[in-house]
């Protein structure tokens, strides 16, 4: 994996040319960078609560759980452009034909495409947790807020962190649906790369791709460091060392 990353970095650095070229290509894409980051953060904030609610439904037995699984899996099977076309059709229908902020559509398509993945990650996390931990919280806690903040969220934190990291990465790289729904005057980094590709601006493309790779690595490293901090805090690593 390290070799893969190194080859990618070396290739992009070589193609993007000098440091100055990289800086200028990134600075010229400042608006797109800001738009992409805001989209990714909003997608995380909207998707995680939805995914958590869905994960609890996925755990339910019988028909309810089956329906939840269908609702989660079907969006994953829909091609990205079709999600975009569907969203445009829906939004320009008679019921929703109202002005909306520029971020809304890119955020909505990313949520509809990637929230199911976050739901599956959180479902797996829930399956690994002893349900008696939640029963104990119900017995000993008088407050739902306390149960959520002190028991449920800390127990789910690893899954939430991983899901947030994956949502960030996938949203940053999303193109197929965003290209269709992004309103005039708004573009993401990947859309700018796509536009540059038409003109054969290899250096610019490589610089922006390098930027996306760096952002993804920062998000991944942040998630890993947070996970390590969580496990260190709960003593898991110390215990392994003691053995």
């Amino acid at each position, binding site marked *: 994996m390290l070799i893969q990353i190194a080859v990618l970095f070396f290739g992009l650095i070589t193609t993007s040319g000098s440091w100055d070229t990289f800086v200028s290509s990134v600075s010229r894409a400042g608006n797109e960078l800001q738009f992409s980051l805001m989209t990714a953060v909003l997608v995380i904030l909207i998707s995680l609560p939805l995914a958590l609610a869905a994960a609890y439904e996925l755990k339910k037995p019988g028909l309810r759980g089956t329906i939840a699984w269908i609702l989660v899996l079907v969006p994953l099977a829909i091609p990205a452009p079709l999600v975009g076309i569907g969203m445009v059709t829906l939004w320009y229908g008679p019921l929703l034909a109202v002005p909306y902020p520029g971020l809304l559509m890119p955020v909505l398509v990313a949520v509809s495409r990637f929230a199911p993945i976050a739901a599956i990650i959180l479902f797996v996390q829930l399956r690994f947790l002893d349900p008696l931990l939640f*029963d*104990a919280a*119900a017995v000993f*806690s*008088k407050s739902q807020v*306390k149960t959520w903040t002190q028991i449920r969220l*800390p127990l789910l934190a690893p899954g939430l962190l991983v899901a947030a990291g994956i949502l960030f990465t996938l949203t940053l790289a999303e193109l197929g649906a965003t290209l269709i729904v992004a309103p005039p005057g708004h573009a993401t980094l990947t859309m700018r790369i796509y536009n540059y590709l038409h003109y054969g601006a290899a250096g610019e493309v490589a610089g922006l791709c390098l930027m996306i790779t760096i952002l993804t690595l920062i998000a991944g490293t942040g998630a890993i460091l947070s996970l390590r901090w969580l496990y260190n805090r709960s*003593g898991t690593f*110390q215990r392994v060392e*003691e053995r």
Partner: protein
Amino acid sequence: MIELEDVSKSFGNYPALSKVSLTIPDHARIALLGPSGSGKTTLLRLIAGLEVPDAGTISSDGRIISSPEYVLPPYERSIGFVFQSAALWPHMTVSDNILFGLDHLPETEQQQRLLTLLERMQITSIKDRFPDQISGGEARRVALARALAPRPATLLFDEPLTNLDRKLRDDLLSLISESVLETGSTMVYVTHDEYEAECVADTIIRFDKGTIIR
């Protein structure tokens, strides 16, 4: 006094409990004895309010606390629960686990209870450790301390000594018996082990196939 009247509970097509009626007087020490799958844990969870009965009612001091239409939340029942797997929250220290249910008390009272229980359970030396860093026997002591901390009217034990060796089990059985006697709480102790039942309870109720057989 806790009264169960014609309580039934099924999971899908599997009937876990069938029309169980039982009276648990105040300060009684009752053991529910039966093989795995006999419904005794389900009964305990129904008393705790962790499950909703399909039929029948559960009352506490004449007030209905569980029925198919209404379930009083577990934390409003003045119960302490010791789960089979100890169920200590892994991200909290031993002290934090014990203190968790005491936030309605002043800080000094919380610390007083904590210190008393740590000493009583002989776990003072591990008070700052996390559950991953303590042994199975210590975890059961912490679970017992957590259940005792709020001084509940009823203590519920769901096979709390499973997978412990004989010596450790005997030590903990003594500790449980003494603690329950000291607090005067009503106790319902679920086990499949006759020896454990005889050690801790003054009444043994035998369970099989979702009904009381004796």
